[in-house]
């Protein structure tokens, strides 16, 4: 079945009022209608009808979406443009085949061994890795060098991936919640300190933390290229890994991974398979963001987050914002002694990463990011704090391009300052 048929009713909801022009970061960057949500919906309508041969042209237009969900939140008719774009990308991938780049992304994220190899190779070869990296490297997903100009600042890789450092089950106090930790690639390979902070915080609360070894990439980078086959394959594998333990919660410290488990899996993976869908929905219901869960379990940040005086500003990751998680991290952060939070202008605006968007449209991604950097610098904060390792990488890149020395930190790192 044509994936666009999945969103046929949704496509009809758009009345072309243009409200999305005010909120779409891609439109703000390109200033041309095909980049606005309304334009993409119009093109998707024609793609579905196939009344005009648009496949090749619209491939580019459909790539100009960060899947940030801003337009969906603000649309008076509640048109789910993110779902529509995902369906259009899938349809185009089926009709035209995946691009070489997205084929490579899929090959890599489906293969844990390749990813681990990539990570190890990086430790040995250091920065050279990124210049000589083979097309199959695990981190091509985030840093596909052949597509990236020399400008990009790439974070150092961890010496040992997070998943290799800890046993699968870390027993807590009896009667306390059992939590499965879905780690995600960025935390596993790059920002391992985020994983350590999560572990420290939940152990502080007496929780049992389970880190299934066979968890995979969440697959969202594949989704942004229309490679839904890969997303489905990974979703099924992750489902098995996450279901193995009867946990009270499935916790993520990565907004994007959380978005995959919470929203996108049920949306694009299980729609035609009721049995699978029921399981995906059960996982979705258990999925919580780390900060959200910490607050829910009554974490007292005065006990765990005390440290040197630091001024911070907070960036809302799209995949937390669209789930309504904006208040919890701020409240926790402000409760940590020594922390002073100053809000930036447009804290809720997308940083411009958008899965593989930042690779395909690096210059535009940079342009969106530059606005973000400017807002961060205007606050004078020493650190920008956020709840998504993907955003962290993007924000670091932008701030370094701007010549700033502002630190980029995860919410959990601040909250766990005293536990180190």
């Amino acid at each position: 079945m044509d994936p666009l048929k999945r969103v046929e009713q949704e496509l009809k909801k758009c009345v072309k009022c243009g409200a999305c022009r005010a909120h779409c970061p891609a439109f703000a960057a390109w200033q041309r209608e095909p980049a606005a949500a309304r334009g993409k919906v119009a093109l998707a309508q024609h793609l579905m009808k196939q009344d005009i041969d648009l496949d090749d042209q619209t491939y580019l237009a459909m790539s100009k979406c960060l899947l940030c969900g801003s337009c969906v939140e603000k649309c008076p008719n509640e048109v789910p443009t993110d779902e529509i774009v995902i369906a259009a990308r899938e349809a185009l991938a089926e009709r035209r085949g995946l691009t070489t780049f997205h084929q490579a992304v899929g090959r890599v994220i489906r293969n844990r061994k390749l990813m681990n190899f990539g990570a190890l190779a990086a430790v040995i070869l250091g920065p050279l890795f990124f210049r000589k990296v083979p097309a199959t490297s695990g981190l091509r997903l985030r840093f596909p060098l052949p597509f990236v100009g020399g400008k990009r600042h790439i974070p150092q890789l961890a010496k040992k991936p997070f998943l290799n450092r800890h046993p699968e089950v870390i027993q807590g106090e009896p009667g306390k919640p059992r939590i499965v930790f879905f780690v995600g690639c960025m935390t596993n390979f790059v920002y391992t300190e985020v994983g350590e902070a999560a572990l420290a915080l939940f152990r502080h609360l007496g929780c049992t933390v389970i880190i299934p070894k066979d968890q995979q990439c969440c697959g969202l980078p594949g989704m942004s290229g229309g490679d839904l086959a890969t997303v489905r394959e990974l979703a099924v594998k992750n489902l098995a890994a996450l279901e193995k333990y009867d946990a009270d919660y499935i916790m993520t410290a990565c907004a994007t991974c959380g978005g995959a488990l919470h929203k996108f899996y049920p949306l694009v993976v299980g729609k035609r398979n009721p049995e699978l869908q029921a399981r995906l929905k059960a996982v979705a219901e258990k999925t919580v963001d780390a900060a959200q869960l910490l607050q829910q379990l009554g974490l007292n940040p005065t006990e765990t987050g005390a440290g040197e005086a630091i001024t911070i500003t907070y960036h809302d990751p799209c995949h937390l914002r669209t789930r309504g998680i904006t208040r919890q991290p701020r409240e926790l952060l402000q409760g940590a002694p020594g922390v002073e939070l100053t809000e930036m202008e447009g804290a809720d605006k997308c940083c411009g990463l958008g899965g593989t968007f930042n690779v395909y449209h690096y210059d535009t991604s940079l342009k969106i990011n530059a606005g973000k950097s400017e807002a961060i610098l205007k606050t004078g904060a020493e650190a920008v704090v956020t709840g998504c390792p993907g955003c962290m990488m993007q924000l670091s890149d932008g701030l370094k391009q701007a010549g700033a020395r502002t630190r980029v930190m995860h919410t959990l790192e601040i909250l766990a300052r005293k536990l180190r």
Partner: protein
Amino acid sequence: MLDQSIIEKLKTIVGGENVATETQDLLCYSYDATQMEFLPDVVVYPGSAEEISRILRLANGEHIPVFPRGAGSGFSGGSLAKGGGIVLVTTRLNHILRIDQENLLAEVEPGVVTEHFQLEVEKLGLFYPPDPASLKFSTLGGNVSENAGGPRAVKYGVTRDFVMGLEVVLPVGDIIRTGGETYKGVVGYDLTRLIVGSEGTLGVVTKIIFKLLPYPEAKKTMLTTFDSIDGAARAVSTIIGNKIIPTTLEFMDYATLQCVDRRFNLGLPAEARAVLLIEVDGDRELIEKQAAKIHEVIKPLGLVEFKVAKDAAESEALWKVRRLVSPSLRDVNPDKYNEDIVVPRSKVPDVIRRIEQIQQKYDIPIVNFGHAGDGNIHVNIMIDKAVPGMEEKAHDAIAEVFKAALDLGGTMSGEHGVGLSKQPFIPLELSPTQIATMQAIKKALDPNNILNPGKMFPAG
């Protein structure tokens, strides 16, 4: 299809990257908020008045239609390329050129988004009141061309009331300035007023000088609920009869409230039949007095609830009721005709009654809400285009709604303009002599009928 040599000439004028001819681009400039679609031949994004002048000279020489376009958020099809031609997008001209705090005015380019301009002047304690519902994405050029209104028109007036001067590229390519920087000025015809609301048929606006006001010290929002539509309608003229001019007086009828309530559970009293959202602004003490007075004078009119917002957050919560109207309407029927008739405000109760009769006669759901304070009612005729015969029925109902407005001394459109949507109904409101006079002006300025042709006047 346009000749390739024309495309090349356009590229020479604005640069290759500012000319779009791919089907996907054309499709994305084929629509506006009316959901009609007309495919242009080419889309150009000029960056200056000089470039627009050269485009129009070329088009005038070759007799190629040109359709000026801002955000493409219009409700009348005014920017659509019916018959094909060049769509001229003004959004690259998006600079606020100056804000003059001594003379309380600002000069802007047409592609500036309305809300962006408002926020910039507010930073300086100044105020640009016109607030069309689309202000977050519509352009000031579009607002000027359509003479946009909005809820605050009750007290402050419409876009026209804030335009002091313009720079306009005429259809033959000449660039002229109209009006200026002084409030007074009586030399020659008032071309500014002629251009404002001319729907892009007489020239392309390239600079606008706006009058500004000091930003009001405070505002107060009230949500008032009535047990009858008549009570709410009479409240409007009673408030104004008591010499209070609120900033906004927004009205929602029972059908509208039901729609919103079904979706968002408003928790309105069971006897609620109509709601007025009232806002006053000005000096802190004055608005307290005004709010108290409003409460006093509308009490006897079947008032069942009177809510006053204590702070900005509560005010926003009250406004939410109004903002939820649009997304809720689709539950009635999937398609709608959104008309915007105006009657003298004392005639609001009469026109509502007439619309009720029309609704019964044609058996089509009609949902009314809007700017009752200035008599401007948004009449939403809810239909399902998939049901055979319904569209035709709606067309007849619309004609009767227009007739009702005209009978009561009103007009068929207060904000949206004529464009293509209201074109067939124009003879209901304008006499042949009026139309001939307007067409004579059009012919004088646009002898080859190249600028936004086929709009406003009846075909033929």
